[in-house]
């Protein structure tokens, strides 16, 4: 947008905004009868659930009366309605503890986003043109019915492909039931393929789920690349635990981070240790070597997890600190010292995630870390890694990705037989997969695509039909967090506000279609509405002793649970961890990287952005303008280059850099950052959207695009296994909030 226009708009709509703010806009619109009665100026807090990542934090929404322009049965008008004003953590919730991450606050802007889809739309231009026209819900449902009806009767396997973001609770049950009823399978897609850790935990502990880290009780935390205070796993719960770990009376826990680039989490480490990508497993085993060798812990402590690892019984001789240190470029003394400290300052816990598991040897590394945890005696113990009852109950299919497969399967599936129809919900694989996978081309083969998303993004722009879902604040929410707690939690939240647009809750749409189709579909999804489904799933917990809600009757229970925002079990000791039976022995192989080190001298480290997560939040202005924790950059992306490297290549701050892998190039301004290895460059994930609302479209660059199609042992995308070369191609622009990178610069004479 031109600055002039910006000014014009600001002058005009600033005034309008002010008026709207005080709730007495001068409108010609008709005034609807209020759908609920609220006292003006009095705020009510309603429970809800944050769905921006898989942590499922319990939140509460501040609702106040206001005037909103809404569409009711195709008629635009003005209505006094309860409007969500702010989202905060639900203080009673065992995961969020009343806290939130920055993304959680911005969830508010999903509902009020100016470019949110306002009603059902059908494509008018040819597919991908982004030309749509609004249609009525009846029309939309009729069209969807027409497409899906036949599939239900045909019962042809793989006829329907249901591509969603990771789901929880009844939402997922309904999606799964629906997909199966129409002869398809749901595929949950997310970029930071957690299947590696889940696979590791499945092999080690028989639970295919993310672990819960009990930081609040641990005295010694070793993390291999896991950004557990920013984006990894359940960051809010982990941050709360971290705070407690820091300032425990008389005992301050130590935190050691191994990674290649100083992440926001790494910045907080007492000891930050640089290690090249792919070496994490070796270092973990090297620590184990010292612990075993110096008899700091009983040799058999790790049990099967240890023995499963090749060479464990013989003391992991090939992982002697000296050897590992030589490869990793860190001192052997450090490894030995950390091994001793961790063994003698229990409870100690070891984490691994993000880039460490996004390597070709990620699974082996994860298994090594599991073994190390076991050896340190911190698996299933306070201050160690645990699993939530939800995860335990789920067992092999806790998060179900084991059962449903990953985007990789989609690729194979479509290659083998093109499905008749594709349903999209929250997943944006066209943006978040390497171009090398050709996902867009594959999806285009599908004759009919319908999207339930609230925004037009790179994937849903391919849709022929869009049936926008109501925002999380406008619809029922349920589901149990997989990690971040040791308690059984069932989130339940009624809509915090009425829809401001003509949207419908996706599960309700599915149920409608199923009922219209009748037959098995109707049987598979017996509920009248999503609300019923949630209510039904909850009944079982009324009888459970010591739960957070005690009730006299089913209805009483139901209303109390709604008011509380869910039900959770009493504080309990972590479930004892049973070891999985893994026959195969694990060898930590050296990580493979795409690209010849001579030609492509730099490790390419895309990292999850604190503000945009996997890119799904780049459409929110608050997230765009919030400064990145490490670089303080706003409204764009950048390439982090080490000062020494920059000097060698004659690159200055904000120079436009071209990053080239064997599979493509991206351009972004240089960020001369002291926190990145001289032999690596890093880019934040999340920008570089082609179509994603006025705020994100055409902004910054997308590092995923140029990733090599490398994969981990279990076939997940190894998004940390690409090598690149960089070159200066011009002058770019950085919008920074922070002036200087260093405090002591104040004394320095300008160079």
């Amino acid at each position, binding site marked *: 947008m031109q600055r002039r226009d*910006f000014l014009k708009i600001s*002058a005009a*709509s*600033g005034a309008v905004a*002010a008026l*709207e*703010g*005080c709730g007495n806009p001068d409108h010609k619109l008709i005034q609807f009868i209020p759908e609920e009665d609220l006292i003006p*100026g009095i705020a009510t807090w309603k429970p809800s659930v944050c769905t921006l990542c898989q942590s499922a934090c319990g939140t509460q929404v501040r609702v*106040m009366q*206001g005037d909103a322009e809404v569409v009711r049965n195709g008629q635009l008008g003005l209505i006094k309605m309860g*409007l*969500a*004003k*702010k989202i*905060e953590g639900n203080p009673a919730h065992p995961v969020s*503890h009343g*806290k*939130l991450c*920055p993304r*959680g*606050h911005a969830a*508010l*802007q999903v509902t*009020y986003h*100016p470019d949110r889809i306002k009603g059902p739309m059908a494509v008018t231009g040819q597919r991908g043109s982004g030309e749509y026209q609004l249609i009525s819900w009846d029309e939309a449902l009729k069209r969807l019915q027409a497409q899906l009806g036949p599939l239900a009767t045909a019962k042809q396997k793989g006829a329907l492909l249901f591509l969603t973001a990771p789901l929880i609770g009844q939402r997922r049950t309904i999606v799964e039931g629906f997909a199966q009823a129409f002869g398809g399978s749901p595929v949950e897609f997310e970029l930071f393929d957690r299947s590696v850790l889940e696979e590791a935990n499945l092999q080690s502990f028989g639970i295919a789920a993310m672990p819960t880290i009990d930081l609040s009780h641990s005295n010694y935390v070793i993390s291999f690349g896991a950004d557990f205070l920013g984006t990894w796993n359940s*960051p809010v719960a982990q*941050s*709360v635990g*971290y*705070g407690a770990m*820091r300032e425990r*009376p008389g*005992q*301050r826990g*130590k935190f050691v981070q191994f990674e290649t680039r100083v992440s*926001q989490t*790494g*910045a*907080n480490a*007492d000891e930050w*240790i*640089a290690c090249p990508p792919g070496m994490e497993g070796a270092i973990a085993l090297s620590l184990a070597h010292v612990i075993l060798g110096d008899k700091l812990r009983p040799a058999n402590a790790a049990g099967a997890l240890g023995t499963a690892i090749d060479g464990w019984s013989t003391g992991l001789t090939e992982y002697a600190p000296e050897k590992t240190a030589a490869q990793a*470029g860190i001192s052997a003394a450090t490894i030995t010292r950390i091994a001793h400290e961790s063994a003698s300052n229990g409870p100690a816990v070891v984490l691994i995630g993000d880039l460490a598991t996004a390597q070709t040897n990620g699974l082996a590394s994860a298994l090594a870390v599991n073994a190390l945890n076991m050896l340190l005696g911190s698996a299933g113990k306070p201050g160690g890694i645990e699993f939530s009852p939800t995860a335990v109950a789920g067992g092999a299919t806790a998060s179900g990705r084991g059962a449903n497969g990953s985007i990789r399967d989609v690729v194979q599936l479509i290659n083998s037989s093109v499905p008749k129809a594709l349903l999209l919900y929250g997943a944006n694989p066209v943006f978040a997969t390497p171009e090398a996978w050709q996902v867009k081309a594959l999806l285009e083969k599908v004759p009919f695509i319908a999207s339930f998303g609230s925004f037009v993004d790179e994937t849903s722009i391919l849709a022929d039909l869009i049936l926008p879902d109501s925002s999380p604040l406008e619809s029922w929410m349920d589901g149990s967090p997989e990690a971040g707690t040791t308690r059984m939690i069932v989130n339940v939240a009624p809509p915090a506000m009425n829809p*401001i647009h003509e949207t419908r809750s996706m599960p309700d749409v599915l149920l409608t279609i199923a009922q219209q189709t009748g037959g098995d579909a109707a049987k598979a999804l017996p509920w009248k509405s999503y609300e019923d489904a949630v209510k039904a799933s909850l009944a079982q917990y009324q009888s459970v002793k010591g739960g957070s809600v005690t009730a006299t009757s089913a209805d009483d229970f139901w209303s109390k649970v709604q008011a509380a925002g869910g039900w959770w079990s009493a504080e309990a000791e972590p479930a004892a961890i049973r070891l999985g039976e893994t026959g195969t022995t694990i060898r930590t192989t050296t990580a493979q990287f795409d690209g010849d080190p001579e030609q492509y001298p730099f490790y390419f480290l895309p990292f999850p952005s604190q503000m945009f997560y996997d890119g799904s939040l780049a459409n929110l202005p608050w997230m765009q*303008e*919030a400064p990145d*924790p*490490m670089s*303080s950059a706003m*409204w764009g992306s950048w390439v982090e280059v*080490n000062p020494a490297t920059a000097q060698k290549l004659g690159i200055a701050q904000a120079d436009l850099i071209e990053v080239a892998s064997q599979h493509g190039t991206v351009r972004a301004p240089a960020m001369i950052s*002291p*926190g*990145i290895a001289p032999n690596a460059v890093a880019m934040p994930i999340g920008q570089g959207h082609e179509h994603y609302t*006025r705020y994100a479209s055409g902004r910054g660059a997308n590092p995923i695009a140029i990733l090599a199609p490398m994969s981990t042992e279990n076939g997940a995308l190894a998004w940390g296994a690409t090598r690149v070369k960089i070159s200066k191609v011009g002058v770019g622009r*950085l919008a920074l*909030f*922070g002036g200087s990178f260093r*405090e002591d610069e104040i004394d320095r004479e300008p160079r």
Partner: protein
Amino acid sequence: MARQWGMVIDLDRCTGCEACVVACHAENNIDTVGEDQAARGRAKHWIRVERYYEGEYPDIKAKFMPVLCQQCAAAPCEPVCPTFASYHTAEGLNGQIYNRCIGTRYCANACPYTVRFFNWFNPVWDEPLNLQFNPDVSIRSVGMMEKCTFCVQRIKAAEIQAEAEKRPLKDGEFAPACVQTCAPKAMVFGDLNDPTSEVARLARSNRATKLLEETGARPQVTYLKRGSWNGAENAENA
């Protein structure tokens, strides 16, 4: 004795996640200025998390320090304002009367912490983003200086509530948006004149320091410096 609102920020707990920054935007109707203006250094973040690197790779460390208005007792921003738009409240806050401000920007220059932000243009919200306005906080128009208020609207609400219920205000019964959302509990807010309050207790910690004290502004925000592993100062942080 009159209240003296103050804050303690524990740098050992702060993880630099910036939840406080976004929470502040949500609570105080702070507009987003867009890329062009942000690049001109006109972004408004009443609270910011300063990040400093130390050393050179691989022996590199980084640290975070949240900085917001320090609500100075002898605030340099107050005497320089020709129209009393910047003034001192009875409860020790540096008040800012938006509609009294004529925009000399003198206060922003005088502030050693650079925590005052100016409305270079009328703020803009693309509809229906304006529906998210917090009705308790006024919208600032062009030419006005704005800054952290310690969420004075929350303070007032709590005080009125307590008064209505004929009871004293309880320590920690409310908090500014940034404090409320801080997951590692790095920020504590309360009445420094109440020796029993948590904030007063922490302010007495031997890790307590103040920012730029040499400028004589007598800031009311106390920083607890980072501890070291098995550091001696751990014992007293009960």
